[in-house]
């Protein structure tokens, strides 16, 4: 009976999707075979023990008992709610890598290579992610901000120092070998569109 009671209790808790009090659990049984409170508590204790190596744990909260996903697995579960992780645009990656190779670099420096203006949104995203920071301003008219990469950037890409980045000449050769699958089609297309219309009339930068 006890194993069965434990199964019933587990089924109830997993079906209810809310905390159930001991009395609520008892109420589903006919009077004739309603378990005593002690018996039920024992079943709950056994269930809690069973859960030790499982993805859920038995929690006693104000309104009773509930089975909930283990706290340490919350991170995994969290990802379930999200859409596919967003992807960075090619424009952003290019901006980042140009800063990495040319630092300190101004927006103008990046725009010069990319041929298109750099959006404020991209700079903001990179600053927010703490992959770049403003190291100062260039002492030229307009005093443009100078961007450099951060330690977090190196950590993220598993680099010890900037010198671990492959030399540019090698990167150039990479281009044939590297597939473009890092970027989804839409982004690529958007970017292609952007590049095609990379006329000075594009005022994205401002």
């Amino acid at each position: 009976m006890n194993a069965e009671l434990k199964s019933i209790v587990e089924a109830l808790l997993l079906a209810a999707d809310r905390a159930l009090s001991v009395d609520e659990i008892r109420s589903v049984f006919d009077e004739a075979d309603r378990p005593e409170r002690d018996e039920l508590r024992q079943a709950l204790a056994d269930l809690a023990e069973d859960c030790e190596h499982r993805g859920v744990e038995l929690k006693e909260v104000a309104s009773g008992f509930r089975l909930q996903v283990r706290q340490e697995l919350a991170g995994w579960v969290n990802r379930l709610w999200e859409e596919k992780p967003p992807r960075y645009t090619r424009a952003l990656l290019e901006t980042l890598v140009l800063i990495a190779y040319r630092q300190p670099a101004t927006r103008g420096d990046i725009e010069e290579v990319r041929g298109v203006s750099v959006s404020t949104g991209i700079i903001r995203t990179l600053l927010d992610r703490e992959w770049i920071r403003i190291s100062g301003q260039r002492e030229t008219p307009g005093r443009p901000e100078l961007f450099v990469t951060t330690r977090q950037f190196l950590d993220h890409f598993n680099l010890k120092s900037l010198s671990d980045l492959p030399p540019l000449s090698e990167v150039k050769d990479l281009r044939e070998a590297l597939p473009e699958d890092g970027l989804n089609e839409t982004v690529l297309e958007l970017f292609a569109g952007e590049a095609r219309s990379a006329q000075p009339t594009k005022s994205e930068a401002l």
Partner: protein
Amino acid sequence: MSGSDPQAPAPSRETPPAAPDSQQQLAIAYIAGTAVEELPGDLYIPPNALEVYLEAFEGPLDLLLYLIKRQNIDILEVDVAEITDQYMAYIELMQAGQFELAAEYMVMAATLAEIKSRILLPRPESAEEEEADPRMQLIRRLLEYERYKTAAENLDEMPRLNRELRQARAGLPEFQRTIPEPVVELSDLLAAMASALRQAELFEHHHVSLESISTEEKISHLLRSLEKDRFVPLVTLLDPREGRLGVVVTFLAIMEMMRGAAVEIVQSDGFGPIHLRLAGGAGKSA
């Protein structure tokens, strides 16, 4: 009939509508050909239950199947003449109750009447193809309908979610729902660099004129174009080839230079031409 509410509880199959045990009475009612004025006791259904009674049947085929099953005979053995009489009796009954019958019931009544007349009247054997024989067609339809009726009953008995089955759900621990950071690999980054370089090359070789203009560049350009001692009309500083962006960047550059007091601007009257010169020249003007 056709508009039965899908949410309404299905009439129980175990209790089919009250049925007459005497075919004789019904047959008489039919032959009379008039509306039934007095319902036989064993046929009586409370008027307000008639609708429910109607709803119990999913159409003429269902009603026919019921009549056949009630006699415990195989569909293939159906005595069409007898079934027709029973069917007509039901139709009469429903009409007597002044319930609007779905047209399908009347079509079926006509079909049955035709079949009955064919069976009763002798006719040349070779005249009719079996395929066109209305009796076989009817039987075929009844058999076909019965298959799906049974399938529907089977489906209804299958375990289903929120009846026999419950999705197991656990509570969620406290956590902040966060939008994950996009995942970027170093290889993505290098691919982007390669692409940027390719892009740059492209621009160098073929699209030099398309290069974007930075404020910084524009400032150095203005510094070269402007002179200390001479006012230059603003319009001459704008390059039409640079388009709108060029205009905006030029303005920004000028504002930036003003902020740094590197330039003087003069507009002699409202909406008049704007002139610039490098700061530090002679002849200040308001």
